């Protein structure tokens, strides 16, 4: 029996059923001979049974039992949360508060590059040693995550390897030393990836929407220019790392089946020696929502399709009406049954797809959506979207719409607990936003108890077209007149680096 098969089948445990005799790998539905011509179907179905007339009974869903969470504190004060999850795998998340707020407006590439460079070597071990070790354990390579309020290092590993996995994640988080030899090569690879981002319409749209919604706030920082990336020094990366991975900023989440006491002891051994420096996390200021509607075109000459993104400011995660606002947005723009999708995709067939884009964060986030249409349809699609959004502010949601939205949001909470990696990530994300670990357990109840009136009020407040921010990535020459005809005010035209394109009717923005 193969060594790998043994490892994986055992790791997957009962998930992987016993293997039977190996059949031949020949697609079964494909006949060897196709000489027979089409035949006429005989009676295709039996007469209708009565159960077919109506959808099955809408049985109540089983209540969610959130996993038990044990909180502890390491000797140096780092809070740790052990989330119980039955799995053959375990997941670790190290959350460092701050991140985007620690870099200058033109310094976002320092944190982006740090996220990559943390995996190319530590004070103890080379990148090659680390990677060989992950492979030998069948552990996921640790991943960096950059969120509006935190930077994270995470990994998933077989449960049996929890101790080693904690040690390795701690080593990467605390001892990355950004070896000079790897720095130049990794920075070069990073720059090439960034150049690709500048040609990726979806990424460009996300970047522009954040700038329009968040303005000068740190949440606006997603990725910078190639020039900014090339200017990043190893010393800047090391300094940022030292600031972020300070015991005053860290929180650790482990999702596992292992009893909490044992896990805490392992975390103490791996993280307990970290001493405080002077780097408490800077508090992100409150987001100042945009006060006026703006429309920006990122010029991509000659393209037949245009990528559209629109967004509105979202309240802070702990705002009293945060749940009502999210329900209102779900009614407006849910991927399946949102009012926008029903009107533009299902009734008018003007867009092939329309997908929501959400940013949630401690100080305020973003409600948005993206789509892609032929250049000549951009103005009519934007006009129709504007009408639907405006109507949503004045047309109260129906009881059925609210029920659907509540169930959609409930299901996402449930999905957060499905896998060990999702569970750890969900708790890490909540904690990064300053939400109590008890909060997620009450999330479903909060959605379900939100009234029609409060959702209607939130819709009026947060789904206001006078705050709508619009980005179109497409051919400026072809878009200029149709967009001007919308009467939404001046249209700003920029290149992929946000350098204003001076032209008649275009109003540039400064970088």
């Amino acid at each position, binding site marked *: 029996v*193969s*060594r790998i*098969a*043994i490892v994986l*089948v*055992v790791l997957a*445990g*009962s*998930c*992987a*059923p*016993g*293997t*039977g005799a190996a*059949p031949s*790998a020949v*697609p*079964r*539905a*494909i*006949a060897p001979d196709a000489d027979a*011509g*089409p*035949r*006429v179907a005989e*009676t*295709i*179905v039996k007469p209708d*049974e009565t*159960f077919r007339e*109506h*959808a*099955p*009974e809408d*049985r109540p*869903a*089983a209540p*969610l039992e959130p996993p038990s969470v044990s909180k502890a504190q390491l000797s140096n004060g780092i809070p740790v949360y052990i989330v119980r999850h*039955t799995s053959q795998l375990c997941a670790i998340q190290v959350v460092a508060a701050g991140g985007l707020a620690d870099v200058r407006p033109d310094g976002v590439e320092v944190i982006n590059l740090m996220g990559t460079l943390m995996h190319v070597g530590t004070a103890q071990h080379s990148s090659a040693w680390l*990677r*060989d070790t992950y*492979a*030998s354990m069948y552990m996921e390579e640790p991943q960096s995550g950059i969120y509006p309020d935190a930077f994270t290092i995470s990994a998933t590993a*077989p*449960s049996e390897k929890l101790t080693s996995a904690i040690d390795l994640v701690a080593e990467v988080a605390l001892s990355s030393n950004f070896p000079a030899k790897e720095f130049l090569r990794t920075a070069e690879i990073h720059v*090439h990836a960034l150049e690709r981002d500048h*040609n990726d*319409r979806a990424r460009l749209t996300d970047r522009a929407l954040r700038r329009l919604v968040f303005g000068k706030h740190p949440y606006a920082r997603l990725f910078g220019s190639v020039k900014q990336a090339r200017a990043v020094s190893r010393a800047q990366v090391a300094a940022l790392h030292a600031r972020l991975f300070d015991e005053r900023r860290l929180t650790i989440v482990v999702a596992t089946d292992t009893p909490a006491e044992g896990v805490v002891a392992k975390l103490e051994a791996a993280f307990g020696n970290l001493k405080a420096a002077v780097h408490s996390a800077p508090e992100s200021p409150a987001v100042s929502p945009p006060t006026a509607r703006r429309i920006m075109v990122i010029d991509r000459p000659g393209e037949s399709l245009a990528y559209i993104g629109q967004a509105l400011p979202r309240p802070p995660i702990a705002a009293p009406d945060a749940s009502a606002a999210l329900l209102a947005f779900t009614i407006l723009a849910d991927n*399946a049954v949102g009012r926008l999708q029903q009107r533009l995709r299902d009734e008018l*067939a003007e867009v*092939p*797809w329309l997908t929501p884009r959400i940013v949630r964060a401690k100080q305020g986030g973003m409600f948005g959506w993206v789509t*892609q249409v032929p250049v000549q349809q951009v103005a009519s699609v934007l006009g129709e979207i504007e009408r639907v959004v405006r109507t949503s502010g004045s047309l109260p949601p129906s009881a059925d719409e609210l029920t*659907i939205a509540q169930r*959609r949001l409930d*299901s996402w909470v*449930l999905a957060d607990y*499905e*896998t*060990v990696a999702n569970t750890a990530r969900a708790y890490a994300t909540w904690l990064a936003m300053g939400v109590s670990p008890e909060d997620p357990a009450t999330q479903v109840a909060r959605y379900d108890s939100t009234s029609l009136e409060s959702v209607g009020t939130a819709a009026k407040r947060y789904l206001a077209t006078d705050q709508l921010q619009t980005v179109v990535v497409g051919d400026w020459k072809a878009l200029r007149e149709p967009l001007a005809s919308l009467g939404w005010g001046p249209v700003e035209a920029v290149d992929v680096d946000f350098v204003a394109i001076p032209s008649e009717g275009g109003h540039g923005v400064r970088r």
Partner: protein
Amino acid sequence: MILRFWLVVLLVLFAGPRDARAQAKMRDVIGPLRERHLANGMNLVVREDHRVPLASLALRYDAGEGAAPPNLGLVAELTTSLMLEKTQHVPAGDYRRLVARAGASSWSDTTTSDAIVLKITLPAARVALPMWLWSDQMGFFDQALDDAELKTQRSVLRERRRNRLEGSPLGRLEAFGEQELFPIDHPYCNRAGELSDVDRIDRDAVIAFHDAWIAPEHATLAVVGDVLVDDVVALADRYFGSISRRDVGPPVKRPTQVVLDGSTEVDILANVPGARVAIWWPTPAFLTTDDGRLDVIANLLSGNRTAWLYWALVDEKRVATAVHTHQYSRALGSVFQVLIEGAPGKSPADILSEFDLAFEGLRKRVVRPKEIDTAVYDYLIDKLLAQDSAATWAYQYTAYEALVGTADYYGHDIDRYSHITPELIHEVIDRWLPSDRRIVLLVTPDPGVVSGGARRGKHFVPAGTP
């Protein structure tokens, strides 16, 4: 490395009491795999997983665009869209509304050249709903099909296709490659064609496709989650068991392995910042032994740990900024793909020339077993981590059941990645990636060209030509 690997195996097999308890706990919440075959030929796969009150379902019809008549590309996708929109007992638009109302966290439909797959994850108590909806699509579709809906869905499909072809600077690259790689009568020869192809699909074509393929004998349903096997079997019998098998349409001819008789170089213009070169070879079908070995070779050429081709072209020769390699596995024949993004100022010819030199060198390169181990890890790690999700299992079971006749195939699938020796790597490269039998797509930057790219010309060089 191998010794360490065996140590891991031993540790996993003979772990201490805590791990034994953990194993026992897993057995308490996750049941064994159950397979049933309904009298009408439909396959049913169920596994209980009681960790969270969710269930994931996947329904696979073993017929995608490859099963469509040659002049009716996209009929499978259009049929799927129409089924999802309206059937005899499900009014227009209700499919989405009902599954959303049931609290589904995700659902999707995918039409590939091999299959149509419907997936959903929802609260387990409402598992009957997708079965009711999907069985209505299987048995009660024709009666609800009207011309207005057909027109609307054709329009939506046309725009979706436009998005795929023109939505990125090289959106047509795959179509250009498939046209050259596969013979005209092959199911993969660019069946999902141009926008105008959509207009050729009429009501009769849709109904013929549905009658032939959206039938119990071509269907596999898998349910994984917080359910009881007996309940799911009863529901499947109720909703699907009464739909008779069709046995109508012609079976898809299983094509023989594509063998090229030379190399074709295609010149393409695209609005990309730098030149690109793609090299494609026809390779064996999904789940075959060599298909697995080619997965590993792809990771040896440009994986996270070993990246022979990347090192040669990006680090040493500096003719490229990125190299991507991939074994694109499909049921009727796979394609090994290399995509090279050129460094500024490099032409497609420069890149191809350096690629050829580098690749010839790699054919003779000494392969270390450790490199193979890490390339295997690179390929398998995501697959392993995904096993924590019921949706992954549901989808995987339908694919195994449809392609090899049993859902119980995970161990055999994984076993393909064992026993790979340095000698086998060389053999497989020589067997499947010859330098004189391939398709080369040479992309030259041109900001003025149509979106998606345009083909300028091609030339053919017979195999064996010096």
